[in-house]
């Protein structure tokens, strides 16, 4: 009989713990945008203040500042959604990890219990316990299940718990994928709102400033600062995108088995 080491708790083809860590990293990275947003808002306020204070012809510039404020507000709301999705995804990954551990313990129980049976059943249970890729229906699994069919044994009870836990885990993985897709869309949205729009506004503001005679005021400086903000947001967001790519690589081994998963939730005697 082998020693209880819990060595089969980590799968080869994917690692739920990595998925969890990467999700939290993305959330952390995107949260770095928040102070940048605050700074952008502050700069926008300063620009408006300058225009108002100088009593100059700043009508169109004020409109740009107003638009910038709207964008910053939108960005904050997207980031809140990101935060929610990443949190749900991390929660989902934790649940999957917990169920994966439970399955490992049930598999061990199944092997220990099967040792009282014939050598062939015991060996099949050993193969199942050592299997690193239980999301795919293995020949050992099929054979083991056939040996239990119509027999009301403890192995039968334990096997059904493994099947139902696995099925719950697949459902949880599906939820995790949904949150991942939502997260990817939100990151895309940040790219469009934060980088392209803010940058565009900063350029427009600069043009406006020189056009309307503010070239010697501090408005060009402010609009340059806004552009710098956009650049910083791009950097943070690029990091997040890279992590998202890594996360996708972590999730990929799961995609096909989950899509093609059609195992039974239970077998009946």
């Amino acid at each position, binding site marked *: 009989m082998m020693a*209880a080491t819990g060595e089969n708790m980590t799968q080869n083809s994917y690692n739920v713990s990595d998925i969890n860590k990467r999700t939290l990293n993305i959330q952390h990275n995107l949260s770095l945008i928040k102070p940048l947003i605050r700074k952008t808002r502050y700069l926008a306020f300063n620009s408006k203040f300058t225009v108002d204070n100088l009593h100059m012809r700043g009508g169109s510039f004020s409109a740009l500042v107003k638009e910038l404020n709207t964008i910053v507000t939108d960005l904050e709301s997207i980031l809140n959604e990101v935060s929610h999705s990443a949190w749900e995804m991390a929660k989902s990954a934790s649940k999957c990890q917990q169920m994966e551990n439970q399955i490992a313990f*049930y598999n061990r129980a199944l092997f*220990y219990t099967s*040792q*009282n049976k014939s050598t062939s059943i015991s060996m099949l249970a050993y193969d199942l316990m050592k299997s690193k890729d239980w999301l795919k229906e293995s020949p050992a699994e099929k054979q083991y299940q056939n040996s239990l069919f119509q027999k009301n044994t*403890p192995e039968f009870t*334990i096997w059904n718990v493994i099947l139902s836990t696995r099925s719950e885990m697949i459902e949880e993985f599906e939820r995790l994928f949904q949150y991942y897709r939502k997260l990817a869309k939100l990151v895309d949205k940040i790219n469009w709102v934060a980088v392209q729009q803010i940058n565009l506004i900063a350029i427009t503001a600069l043009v406006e400033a020189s056009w309307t005679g503010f070239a010697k005021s501090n408005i060009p400086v402010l609009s340059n600062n806004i552009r710098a903000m956009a650049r910083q947001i791009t950097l943070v967001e690029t990091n997040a995108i890279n992590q998202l790519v890594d996360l996708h690589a972590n999730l990929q081994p799961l995609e096909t088995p989950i899509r093609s998963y059609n195992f039974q939730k239970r077998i009946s005697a």
Partner: protein
Amino acid sequence: MISHELYNDGARRWVYLGRDPNKSDTIIDTNQYLIVHNGEGMLLDPGGIETFPSMVSTLSREIELEKITTIFASHQDPDIISSLALWFGLLPNIEVYVPWVWGTFIPHFGGGRVLKSIPDEGMTFSLGGSNDLTLVPAHYCHSSGNFSLYDPTAKVLFSGDIGAALLPPSLTDIFVSNFSKHTQFMTGFHKRWMPSNEAKNKWVHRVRDLNITLMCPQHGAIFRDGDVKQFQDWFENLDVGSAI
């Protein structure tokens, strides 16, 4: 893990489960117990998550798993009940009884289910039509919410951590064979883990008049016949809460 029948009168059985050769050296050895009455089973301190696979395997030789309806956890320690979520997964209809003070702590072991609370004064369990399994308060021995279980039919007292011994791996006998020699494995444990002389003496007073032929702790060896009384005397005279 080995199993050993401690009592059997046809209707009621007590089974010891422990001394697991598969146990990792990193975890403390634990004793688990199964009471069966008219085919219905109850587990006393079913053990930690690491013990679960061996427990299920050994239990399945003693009773149909689905016939286990009740779990009693004497207190909150991980070696007592960290397997909780796995039991709920395996036996979804099982009822788990815990001291009320631990009612919202023990669910941190998972399972997402409401546990049954045991009041401070104790209670009796219904099992297979019987109503005589009685919980004896053992608060602060060692946990702040703690119970022993007395079976007047089998004359067995499950004492939880009271009477526990930290045995060297070479001593595998499940019964105490020489009480005087055995005390060396109990003294340190009781002095350190039991915090209150007053609580300890109250427990001794509660169980003194019970008719006990077997006293079954959660660690170490089981006390038989005269050793039960010897243990009570030894425990009463021990100054606990004094190991540091």
